[in-house]
């Protein structure tokens, strides 16, 4: 019998519906688990115990009154601290927003509340979602539950670690260049970046607006489908949200992928990809073949320009988006007496932002500054067109593309901190889908020396149902997604209440 914190969302919601389990019990089990492992994992900036228990109690009461409730009613979830939650501080893991309490909910939060979800806390991240290891948090680093000396990936490392460690049943993150999929790969979780425009960005604190997209973390493809179902769909408050019908994602989980055309981009198996990662991904592709998929090689010839184009476009957009933090309207404000407004704003921003954020603001400001625009920004946007055309061509021939999510398994804390560009290369296989807007999912695909390897499945625009079908079929043939890390100091859960 698994512990309550080990249940998937779909298992728990069946037991909740049958009244064999209460949301209070389930929420207590997760809060207890947080109390046990959080000292080692450090996934949360804020744990909202009181609010979680109130939400759980309300759901239990509604259920006892006979209300018909959906699959997320009473389910404990964690939310990346870049998504606005009314009344609960939302820090972006930055000194700049350390005491910011949003006066409104993001659309995804409003939808999850309406679905009856229970929020156990806000998760740690790289400051303003800039990073691939969660070490750029202004507060503390999050540790990978699979090896506490290693990073959980980033920037949504807190959400990934919380789900991997059983501190929450699912979580939301945001993905601008791989910030959901890469930590998903490094922590053995199912991690989905939807098509740009599929999920509303209203209330998501902006990093790079033409790339940012909110996506779920889960421990099964079915759970990811349940979470996506709740948050997807048109929102008049986000002008880039697309008015496209939302399919029934769980209905897509047929287990049948026979005849599915799977393309393997050879540019995703280049030098720099660890042998252990390559071997695990090749085994996963064999598994898909054994399930009836038709596997063929393909080419995304402009992949090698992706990181460069991204590190012009994303910092450029960030330099504009982060201009709003001036110490006057909200956020951190330096106590400093001066009559010079520029001096005041500059000192506040210098003290409020961390090293990586300043580096990217500088890079973006440089790329957009007079004389460099054509060589950098315009050129990068042309390369973006080439990368999109690569995908468009590949999807004329294939239903999905499969490769590694990240070129490496989880690396050691501190290992890549002194070399910014080495850190940027973590996202070499995830960035192209952001530039082109395509959906991508990272699924637990195997292990290399005891550390998880993520397999990335990329689809055509609005192909999330197909990605989830592939992920679910793969899970039925393997047990990687169901494995748990062993955490030191974790005692068996307290007696159920």
């Amino acid at each position: 019998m698994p512990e309550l914190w080990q249940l998937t969302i779909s298992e728990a919601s069946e037991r909740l519906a049958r009244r064999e389990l209460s949301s209070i019990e389930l929420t207590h089990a997760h809060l207890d688990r947080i109390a046990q492992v959080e000292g080692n994992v450090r996934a949360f900036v804020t744990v909202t115990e009181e609010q979680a228990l109130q939400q759980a109690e309300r759901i239990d009461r509604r259920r006892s009154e006979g209300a018909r409730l959906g699959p997320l009613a009473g389910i404990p979830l964690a939310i990346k601290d870049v998504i606005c939650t009314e009344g609960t501080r939302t820090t972006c893991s930055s000194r700049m927003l350390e005491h910011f309490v949003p006066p409104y909910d993001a659309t995804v939060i409003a939808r999850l509340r309406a679905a009856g979800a229970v929020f156990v806390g806000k998760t740690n991240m790289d400051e303003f979602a800039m990073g691939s290891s969660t070490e750029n948090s202004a507060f503390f680093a999050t540790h990978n539950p699979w090896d506490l000396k290693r990073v959980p990936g980033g920037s949504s490392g807190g959400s990934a670690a919380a789900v991997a460690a059983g501190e929450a049943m699912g979580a939301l993150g945001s993905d601008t260049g791989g910030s959901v999929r890469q930590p998903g790969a490094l922590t053995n979780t199912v991690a989905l970046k939807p098509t740009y425009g599929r999920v509303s960005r209203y209330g998501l604190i902006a990093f790079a607006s033409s790339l940012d997209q909110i996506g779920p973390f889960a421990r099964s493809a079915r759970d990811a489908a349940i979470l996506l179902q709740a948050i997807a769909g048109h929102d008049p408050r986000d002008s880039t949200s697309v008015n496209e019908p939302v399919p029934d994602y769980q209905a897509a989980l047929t287990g049948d992928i026979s005849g599915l055309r799977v393309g393997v981009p050879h540019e995703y198996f280049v030098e720099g990809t660890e042998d252990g990662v390559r071997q695990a991904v090749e085994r996963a592709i064999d598994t898909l073949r054994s399930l009836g998929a038709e596997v063929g090689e393909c080419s995304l010839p402009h992949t090698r320009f992706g990181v460069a184009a991204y590190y012009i476009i994303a910092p450029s957009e960030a330099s504009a988006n982060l201009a709003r933090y001036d110490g006057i309207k909200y956020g951190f404000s330096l106590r400093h007496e001066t009559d010079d407004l520029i001096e005041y704003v500059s000192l506040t921003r210098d003290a409020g932002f961390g090293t990586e954020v300043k580096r990217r603001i500088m890079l973006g400001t440089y790329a957009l500054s007079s004389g460099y625009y054509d060589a950098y920004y315009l050129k990068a946007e042309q390369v973006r067109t080439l990368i999109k055309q690569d995908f468009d061509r590949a999807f004329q021939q294939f239903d999905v593309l499969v490769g590694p999510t990240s070129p490496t398994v989880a690396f050691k804390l501190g290992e890549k901190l002194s070399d910014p560009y080495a850190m940027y290369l973590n996202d070499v296989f995830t960035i192209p889908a952001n530039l082109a807007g395509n959906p991508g999912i990272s699924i637990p695909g195997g292990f290399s020396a005891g550390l998880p390897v993520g397999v990335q499945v990329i689809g055509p625009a609005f192909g999330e149902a197909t990605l989830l079908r592939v992920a679910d079929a793969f899970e039925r043939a393997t047990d990687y997604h169901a494995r748990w890390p062993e955490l030191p100091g974790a005692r068996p859960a307290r007696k159920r209440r």
Partner: protein
Amino acid sequence: MSIDRDTVDHVALLARLALSEQERETLREQLSAILEHINVIGEADTSRVPATAHILPLENVMRDDKVQAFPHPEVLVEQAPAHEDGYIRVRAVLEHE
């Protein structure tokens, strides 16, 4: 391509970042190294390739310009580091006699 100290100073002013001497020097080195990698995009043949600013075919979204009451405006003003009588306090930016 390496960038010089004057460029770092100019960009820091544009970005409104009061960086320390040490930070400016580190950033000069790091940004030069990053730009060296980024310059690979010069090798991409983009002649006659249109720019993609955004992957969606975006259209203007129109709605009626209706007044909607925000439920608790005081919460917005209280976000400001300095406020008084429901207003945000700011430094004087215009000279007065």
